[in-house]
C-alpha cells in the first residue's frame, strides 16, 4: 500500500521537514530532523529505483487526478537513479553539517540553514520526479531560492554578491524555461511531459516548437552552468559554506543535466533535436570549450575552492559531451559521469571543508605542508583528484572510458584525444595541490593543527572510498547508467 506512494513520499518528506525544522528551532533538534529526513529519503529512493528498473515506468497521479489533467509523477530508471544520487549526497552531507556548519553559520541561524537544505532537497527531488512541465518550473524555483539563501550564508561578504549574481542568472534561466514551456503549451494545450512527447511529433517541424526548444535549452543550460553560461558558479561554490558547496556541486547542476536530457531525448526527440539541425554540433563545441577553457582557468586559481569550482565546469563538459553524441553509449557515459563526478567532487569539497576549518581559508598558499599536518585529508583529497583526472581504479576513469568508447562507436576518434588532453589539464591543477601539500614545508611557527573532527572527516572519506569502490567495480553503477540511458532514449510509455 505504502509502496505505490513512494514517488510522492520522496518529495513530501523533506518538504514537510523544512517547516517542522523552523518550528523546532534548536540547532541539535533541527539537525536531527534534517538527518532523519535525509535518511528516510534515501530509504525511499532505493526501492523506488528497484521498482522503476523492474517495471519500466511508474506513473503516480497526485490526488488521484488522472493525467494529463492532473499532475503526474513519472518515474523511470533515469530519474530514479538521479534521485538516488541526490538522496545519497544528502545523507553524506548531513552528518558533516553538524560540526561543519558550527564554524561557518551563526548558531541562531542553524535551523534556517537546515530548513533551506531540506527545501533544496525537496525541490531537486521534485524536479526529478515530476511529469509536468510547469510543476518542474515550480520545483526548480523552490530549489533555486533555497540555494540562493544557502550560498548567502557563507562567512565571506562576497558570498552575498555571489548569491545575488546567481539569483539574477538563475531567475533569467528559469524565466527562459517558462517561456519555452509557454510556447509548447500554446501549441499543444498540454503541460504533461509524456503527453507533450506524444503530441509534438504530430505538430511537425513548426518554428514555435524550435523556439521552445531554444528557450528551454538556454534556460536549463544556465542552471547546468554549461560553458559559457557558467559565470555564476565559481563564486557561488567558493564563498558558500563548505557543506553547501559539496551538496550543490554533487546535485544541483546534475539535476539540471537530467532535465536537459529528458527534454532532448524523451520530449522533443532525437530527430528534432539532433538529426535535423546542428544542436549536436553546437553542444559538442561548447562541451569541448568547457573541457578546456575552465580547466586552464582552474590551473591559475589561488583558492582551492575556486579551483574545484572551475574543475566542476570543466567536468560538466564531459557530461554534455556524452549528451551531444546522441547515442545510448553517449548517454550512458553522461549518466555514469554524473554519478561518478557527484561522488568525487562532493567528497573533495567535504574534505576541503575540514581543511578550511583548520586553516581558516581555502587559499592554496596556506596549505603548504598539508600532507604532514593533515595527512589523511590531504591523501583523500589527492585520491579525489586522481578520480578527476581519470586514473584507472577511480570512478572518474570508468566514465571517461565509457565516453571514449561511445565516441569511437560514433566514429569520432579524435574525441578520445580531446578527452585525454583535457585530462592532462586536470593533472596540472591537481598537481598544484600535491606540490603545495607534499613538497613544501609547513610555515615556521604554525600551530600544529591536526585532522578535522571525525564527523567532518568521515563523510568525505566515505565518499572518496565510494569513488574508489565504483572505480574498481562498476557493475552496479554501469548497469544503472545503462538502464537510465535506455530509459531516456526510449519513448516514455
Amino acid at each position: 500500500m505504502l509502496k505505490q506512494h513512494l514517488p510522492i513520499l520522496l518529495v513530501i518528506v523533506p518538504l514537510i521537514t523544512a517547516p517542522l525544522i523552523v518550528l523546532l528551532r534548536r540547532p541539535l533538534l533541527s539537525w536531527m530532523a534534517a538527518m532523519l529526513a535525509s535518511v528516510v529519503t534515501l530509504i525511499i529512493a532505493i526501492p523506488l529505483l528497484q521498482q522503476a528498473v523492474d517495471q519500466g515506468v511508474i506513473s503516480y497521479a497526485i490526488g488521484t487526478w488522472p493525467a494529463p489533467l492532473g499532475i503526474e509523477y513519472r518515474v523511470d530508471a533515469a530519474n530514479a537513479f538521479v534521485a538516488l544520487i541526490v538522496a545519497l549526497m544528502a545523507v553524506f552531507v548531513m552528518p558533516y553539517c553538524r560540526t561543519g556548519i558550527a564554524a561557518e553559520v551563526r548558531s541562531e541561524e542553524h535551523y534556517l540553514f537546515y530548513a533551506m537544505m531540506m527545501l533544496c532537497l525537496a525541490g531537486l527531488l521534485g524536479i526529478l520526479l515530476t511529469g509536468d512541465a510547469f510543476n518542474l518550473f515550480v520545483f526548480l524555483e523552490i530549489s533555486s531560492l533555497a540555494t540562493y539563501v544557502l550560498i548567502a550564508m557563507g562567512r565571506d561578504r562576497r558570498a552575498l554578491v555571489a548569491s545575488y549574481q546567481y539569483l539574477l542568472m538563475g531567475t533569467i534561466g528559469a524565466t527562459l524555461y517558462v517561456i519555452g514551456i509557454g510556447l509548447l503549451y500554446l501549441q499543444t494545450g498540454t503541460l504533461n511531459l509524456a503527453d507533450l512527447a506524444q503530441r509534438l511529433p504530430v505538430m511537425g517541424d513548426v518554428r514555435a516548437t524550435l523556439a521552445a526548444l531554444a528557450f528551454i535549452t538556454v534556460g536549463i543550460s544556465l542552471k547546468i552552468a554549461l560553458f559559457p553560461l557558467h559565470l555564476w558558479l565559481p563564486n557561488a561554490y567558493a564563498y558558500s559554506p563548505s557543506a553547501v558547496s559539496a551538496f550543490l556541486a554533487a546535485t544541483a547542476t546534475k539535476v539540471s543535466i537530467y532535465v536537459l536530457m529528458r527534454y532532448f531525448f524523451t520530449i522533443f526527440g532525437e530527430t528534432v533535436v539532433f538529426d535535423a539541425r546542428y544542436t549536436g554540433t553546437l553542444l559538442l563545441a561548447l562541451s569541448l570549450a568547457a573541457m578546456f577553457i575552465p580547466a586552464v582557468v582552474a590551473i591559475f586559481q589561488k583558492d582551492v575552492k575556486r579551483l574545484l569550482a572551475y574543475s566542476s565546469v570543466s567536468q560538466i563538459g564531459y557530461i554534455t559531451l556524452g549528451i551531444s553524441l546522441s547515442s545510448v553509449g553517449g548517454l550512458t557515459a553522461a549518466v555514469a559521469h554524473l554519478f561518478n563526478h557527484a561522488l568525487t567532487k562532493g567528497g573533495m569539497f567535504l574534505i576541503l571543508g575540514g581543511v578550511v576549518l583548520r586553516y581558516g581559508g581555502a587559499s592554496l598558499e596556506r596549505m603548504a605542508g598539508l600532507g604532514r599536518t593533515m595527512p589523511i585529508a590531504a591523501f583523500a583529497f589527492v585520491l579525489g583528484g586522481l578520480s578527476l583526472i581519470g586514473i584507472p581504479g577511480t570512478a572518474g576513469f570508468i566514465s571517461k572510458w565509457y565516453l571514449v568508447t561511445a565516441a569511437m562507436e560514433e566514429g569520432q576518434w579524435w574525441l578520445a584525444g580531446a578527452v585525454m588532453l583535457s585530462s592532462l589539464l586536470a593533472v596540472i591543477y591537481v598537481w598544484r595541490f600535491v606540490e603545495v601539500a607534499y613538497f613544501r614545508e609547513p610555515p615556521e611557527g604554525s600551530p600544529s593543527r591536526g585532522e578535522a573532527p571525525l564527523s567532518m572527516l568521515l563523510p568525505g572519506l566515505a565518499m572518496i572510498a565510494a569513488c574508489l569502490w565504483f572505480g574498481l567495480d562498476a557493475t552496479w553503477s554501469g548497469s544503472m547508467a545503462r538502464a537510465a540511458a535506455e530509459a531516456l532514449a526510449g519513448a516514455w510509455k
Partner: protein
Amino acid sequence: MNLASHYTYFVTILLLMVGLFIVIARSNLIKKLVGLGLFQTAVYLLYIAPGKLIGGVAPIIGEGFDVYSNPLPHVLILTAIVVGVATLALGLALVVRIKEAYGSIEEEEILERDAADELNATDRA
C-alpha cells in the same frame, strides 16, 4: 500573418527585452531587480493573453454564458507570480545585506572593494 492580431506577442517581447536590458546595463543592484521583475512579468502576458477569449467569461457553467476563457494559464501565472514575488523579496533582502556589508549598492563599487581586499590579502601574505 496579421500583425495586429499578434500585438500581444510584440508587447511581450518588447517588455522582455526592456527588462533584460535593464538587468544587463544597470549597475545599481535595485534597478537590476526592477529589470528582472519586468522580465518575469512580461512572461505572464505570454501565457494570459492567448487564454482570454473576447467576450469569454470565467468557466463556470451558467445560463446565458457559452464562451469561456481558458482558466489554466491564469492558474499557472498565479503560481508564477508567487515565485516572482519570492524571488524579488529574496533579491531585495540580499541587497540590504550587501548594503550593510559593503556600504554600497553599485555593482562597480562593490567589485572595486573586492579587488582592493584581494590586493591587501596578497600584500599581507
